[in-house]
Each structure stands twice: as C-alpha cells, then as structure tokens.
C-alpha cells in the first residue's frame, strides 16, 4: 500500500459506542511521517486518547483504516501483535507490572517473544536504566519508586522493544508537578534522537517546544493541525481560539 513517506496513517477513522449513539471519533484522518513528533491537544473528552489508542488498535475503530508501514493493520488477517512490537506505548498511570522487578518489567516482552535471550535483555535493560540514571533501581519493585521514576521506567520498557514509533497518552497528567520535568526531559531527548512520536498532552509549553506539528481535536474531530508556532499564535478555528485562551 502507498505510504507517501508516512510511517503511520489514520484514514477516515471513526469510533462509535452504543451502536453509534456516542461518536468518540468521527472520520479522523492523520498522517505521521518517520521522525516526526506530533502533539495532540484538545479539551477532555475530545477523543485525543481514543485517537492515540486507535493507532495501535487498543481501541478497534468502528470504521476506517490504520496504515502502519504500508500495511492496513485493521485488516482481520493481520497479526496485530507483530505490529504492536514496533509501536511503544506509555500510559497516564504508568501500568508497570507491580509483581515484577524493574528489570523484569523491561525484559518481559523481549524475552517472552523470543526476540532476545535473558542475558542480552538484561544487559539492554541495564543500558536503558543507566540512560535514565536509575540503574540502582533494577532489582526494586515498582511500589518503591516515585511517579516520575515509574513513568521513566515505563518509557524505557517500551524502548526495550526497539519500536519505530512511541505513543504517549497523557504521560505527565498523573505526576506530581515537581516530577513532570524529568519525564518531559526524557521525551525531549527521544525526540532529539529522531524517534517518531505521537503525544496526547496538556503540556502546551512542551508541545510548542518539542513537537513538529500540533493537532487540535474537539468532539471527536480533528479541527486543525499546523506548526506549533502557527497553531498557538494564530489559530484558524474559533473553537481552537477558545480552547487556547483558557489554557495558555
């Protein structure tokens, strides 16, 4: 399938609940190029998270296609598990596995999926933990860590799969204010390394600074998307202006 240089594309994706009574997503189309950082902003309930979760099919669209590396992954004959390996996801509530050590959290998927043996995976986990200065926490359980530490470990757990794209679902919304910085710094360094990223966020300053493009959503629709500076300084849509006037 033609990709036009896009790593991942949503084509006319809709997500309905209760037989169409609730339209969480209404004919959304979005293209993300390789290496691009896209921030998705909008009021609560606008469908941002649903849109992000459609990218790796944690939410299965009611209609439309999700094209990843030129393959329509909404096709029933596609093994979604193989494609999810290449799409890391980070959640608002971290979702670390509480019954496993930090190291085991990171190595579980690569080892279980036979992508690495345990010793290679352990070595990789330690390199990743060193990168975020948490190597000394390798044998700790998640309950012993702060929110910022948990989220950074959740990020490197996703990185251990060596993904082509990282999806972030409000990664700093559940953090104490003083821990937001350390998580954003890590995300920024990923962006600088050229990682393709889609980020649902309320951190407007971060979106403006790090994103290549900002997407504004409301009521399940993508209303406007543009360069951060253009979207924040001269929004075209009335609804975008209203939203930005409240949050900036």
């Amino acid at each position, binding site marked *: 399938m033609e990709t036009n240089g896009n790593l991942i594309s949503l084509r006319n994706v809709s997500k309905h609940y209760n037989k169409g009574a609730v339209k969480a997503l209404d004919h959304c189309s979005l293209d993300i190029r390789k290496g691009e950082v896209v921030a998705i902003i909008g009021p609560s309930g606008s469908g941002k998270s649903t849109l992000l979760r459609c990218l790796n099919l944690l939410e299965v669209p009611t209609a439309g296609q999700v094209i990843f590396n030129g393959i329509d992954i909404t096709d029933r004959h596609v093994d979604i598990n193989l494609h*999810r390996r290449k799409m890391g996801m980070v959640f608002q509530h971290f*979702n670390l596995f*509480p019954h496993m050590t930090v190291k085991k959290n990171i190595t*579980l998927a690569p080892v279980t999926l036979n992508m690495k043996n345990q010793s290679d995976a352990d070595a990789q986990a330690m390199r990743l933990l060193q990168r975020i200065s948490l190597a000394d926490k390798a044998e700790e359980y998640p*309950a012993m860590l702060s929110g910022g530490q948990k989220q950074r470990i959740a990020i490197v757990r996703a990185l251990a799969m060596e993904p082509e794209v990282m*999806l972030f679902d409000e990664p700093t919304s559940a953090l104490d204010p003083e821990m937001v910085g350390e998580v954003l710094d890590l995300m920024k360094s990923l962006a600088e390394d050229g990682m393709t990223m889609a980020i649902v966020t309320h951190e407007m300053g971060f979106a403006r600074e790090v994103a290549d493009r900002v997407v504004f959503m409301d009521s399940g629709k993508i209303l406007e998307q543009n360069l951060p500076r253009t979207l924040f300084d001269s929004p075209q849509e009335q609804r975008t202006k209203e939203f930005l006037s409240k949050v900036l």
Partner: protein
Amino acid sequence: MLSDFITLFTNPGTASFVNFSFLPKYAPYFVQGLAYTLLLSVTSVLLAIIPALILALMRLSKSRAIRWPAGAYIAIFRSTPLMVQIAIIYFGIFFLIKIPNITILGIVTLSSFIPFTVALALNSAAYVAEIFRAGILAVDSGQTEAARSLGLPAWPSMRLVVLPQAIKNVLPALANELITMVKESSLCSAYGTMELMWAAKMVAGTTYISIGPYVLIAILYFCINFPASKAIEAIERRMRRGDKR
C-alpha cells in the same frame, strides 16, 4: 419445660448433650472420620482449581459460544442442591464408570472416595470459577493494555501479567471455599462415605446415645474451621498492608 431442657445437660442418659461415654470405645472412628473429611475436602478443592480457571477464562471470553457453556455449567451447579448433585454423580455417572476396590492410606477405598471427590470437585469448580473471575476482573485493565501494547498476545498477557496478580487477590476466598467444603462434605455421609458425620451417625445408632456424637463432631468441625478462618483473615490483613502500588 425448662427443667426438661436442663436435664439435657445433667442427666447421664442417652439423650444428653454431655454424654461422651462412647468415646473410649469409639474414638478411633472419629479420628478416622476426621482424616477422611479433611482428605475429601482438600482433594476436591485442589481438583477444582484447574477446571475452575478454565471456566473463569471461558466466562471472560469475547465469544458467546465459549461464554455460554461455562455460564450454563456454573448456573446449574450453583442453583441445585449439592446433595442432589452427589446423588446424580454417584448413582449416575459412577454407575457407568467402575472404580477398582483398592484401599490406600489404610482408610481410603478408591471406589467410594473417587466418586464423592469428583462430585464435590465439580460443585466446587462452579464456585471457584466465580472467585477466579472476580479476581481477574479486579486486576486493573491497564495491566492488560500495557502487556498487549508491548506485543504480547492475549494468553501470555493473561498468564504472565494478569493471573499472578489475580491469584494473590483470590487466595483468601479460595481458603474460604476450602472451609465450606470441610462442612459440605458431611453430605456424603448420606451415601455411606466414612467421614466425620458418618462416624457420628454410626456411633449414635450403635450406642443409642443420640446427641453426644453430634455435639462431639460439631466441636471438631468448629475447631478446624474457626481457627482456619481467623488465620485467613490475618493473612488477608497482612496482604492488604503490603499491597502498595
């Protein structure tokens, strides 16, 4: 009227709460009955665990064709008396399947032990399945989402991420099911299983001491189940304290 009641505790006759004169002669029957009761209930709950897990996973399936048989099984076993289930399984199924008359451990004759263990286990599986289902549902859905987003297929996500956390949730309920089984297994006495209730019936019938044997086994049941339930409560409290996320 009141004086009649008091004599139940004071007279030395056969209709007395405190007449344990049968004990010196018949104590071995109660010891053996107790051992049989414990063996029967522990074995049947252990046997129930794997079928219960399968039933619980079936109940949680997305497919109606898989959910329905498990739901029907659970509904049938929870909505009919255990006494009736034992009769049907003992006289029905094990009329067709012949078990050899082998005695193990000195007290267990397989031809009667296996049918009753299976009957209790089939019943227990229905209840334990619901315990497992609740335990699995109590694990935060974010855990499954995180596992699936890493590319783990459904079963490895369940086995490596969800089940270990669910089992911790259900251990107290599972232990309570064991206590229930210790009590319920007394129903098997109606079909000649030589467990604790049967021992009491037999002694009462032989000696005409009509109350004492039942008072004795009530005390025995209590002495097992009450400390066990208190121990479970204590473990539950400690687990909750250690359950910081």
